[in-house]
């Protein structure tokens, strides 16, 4: 087991190991329901709730769950939280629930959630498991928000329903259709890989620079 600090447990999921943008997990909701910012946030929050709830319970029960039935038990716990989220959303925000449709129920099969239970929560104390769940869930929300913001602004000319460019703006309808999801994800991944490469390059340059400086000093 890799040793990590609590801070790392929390921050890892947000950027360095972002579930959607780096690990490419949970792409199905990230592509399917991010046509508006509102839907993206609702989906992100629902997944966040399920992830935190499941991690808490899995970590609490980790001593009682026999190894042979752990996956079934994790799925059962996840499914319970998903059903709670499904019913609550329908009762509290019926319009959002209608827009998300089957994708709320499909949170059950989001491999990001099962992955965190199997790889982390089932092996760590509650505090660490929660930090990890909150970080990963937040990373998921951030990724979905980015997708939703780009797609809604370009595809509808609005942000959270508020018109940005006035009536003369001709929306790029393709951005709120399924191809727009793939395009947006592609460009986001491209931007991230560019940033990562730039950073790696800079680090390399710095170390090279140090070596040269040391040689000169010598």
């Amino acid at each position, binding site marked *: *087991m*890799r040793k990590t600090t609590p801070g790392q447990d929390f921050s890892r999921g947000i950027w360095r*190991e972002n579930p959607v943008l780096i*690990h490419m997990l949970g792409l199905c909701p990230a592509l399917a329901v991010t*046509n508006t910012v509102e839907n993206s946030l609702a989906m992100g929050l629902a997944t966040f709730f399920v992830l935190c709830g499941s991690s808490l319970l899995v970590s609490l029960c980790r001593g*009682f*769950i*026999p*190894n*042979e*039935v752990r996956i*079934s*038990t994790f799925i*059962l*716990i996840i*499914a*319970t939280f998903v*059903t*709670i989220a499904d*019913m*609550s959303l*329908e*009762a*509290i925000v*019926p319009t959002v629930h*209608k827009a998300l449709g089957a994708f709320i129920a499909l949170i059950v099969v989001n491999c990001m959630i099962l*992955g965190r239970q199997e*790889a*982390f929560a089932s092996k760590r104390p509650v505090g660490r498991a929660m930090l990890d769940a909150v970080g990963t869930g937040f990373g998921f929300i951030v990724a979905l928000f980015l997708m939703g913001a780009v797609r809604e602004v370009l*595809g509808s000319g609005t942000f959270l329903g508020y018109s940005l460019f006035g009536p003369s703006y001709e*929306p790029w*309808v393709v951005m*709120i*259709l399924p191809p727009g999801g793939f395009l947006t994800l592609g460009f986001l991944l491209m931007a991230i890989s560019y940033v990562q490469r730039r950073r790696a390059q800079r680090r390399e340059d710095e170390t090279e620079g140090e070596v040269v400086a040391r040689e000169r000093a010598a």
Partner: protein
Amino acid sequence: MTDAPPPPPAPPETPAWRLVSTLAVAGTLAGLLLVFVYQATAQPIAAHKAKMLRLAIQEVLGGPERYDTLYLVDGKFTGLPEGAKERDFERVFLGYGEDGRPVGFAIEADGPGFQDTLKLIFGYDAATKRILGMKVLESKETPGLGDKIEKDREWIDQFRRAVAPLVPRKPGSTKGGESGVDTITGSTISTKAVIKIINAALEDLGPAVEAYPAGEAKR
């Protein structure tokens, strides 16, 4: 997540009763929890659905004073037979005006759209065979194109006073006279689907609706 741990030494086998009891306990607890959540949320969910339906009926019948729900039993519309379950029968809603006279029926219908099943409700005056209004309840039509069937007010207003059975026509054409409904360029399939669904529903339920006594008593 990425670094796989080395395979652990084979753990001692867990007895079967422990596996079964773990799953049984987890399942029971999950079930109990869901019962509580269901009970807490069932009422607001049902209330919201009823409210949406009420608003839709109000819209397609032009704001009736009140309405009755009628169920199709043996080819005739009546009240709900005693002891029967509501969802076993097709239903329509009969709206009444301020003077207590029936203004028309609100009929729910569905059928294939461009992407997925379209659900809609429309008002129908059996005596004059006129459509009173139409509202799409559920659709997944293409945003910006097919979803005009929900958002294009001008298009939706065409259904008001159109005579059934409806005839789809190109904008500008006068085909079908009072029965003609213009299609929308770019949403031809969706707009035709709406017309088809209404015609099919009337073919199906029209005779029973027209035979309903209140419909005759009115005039």
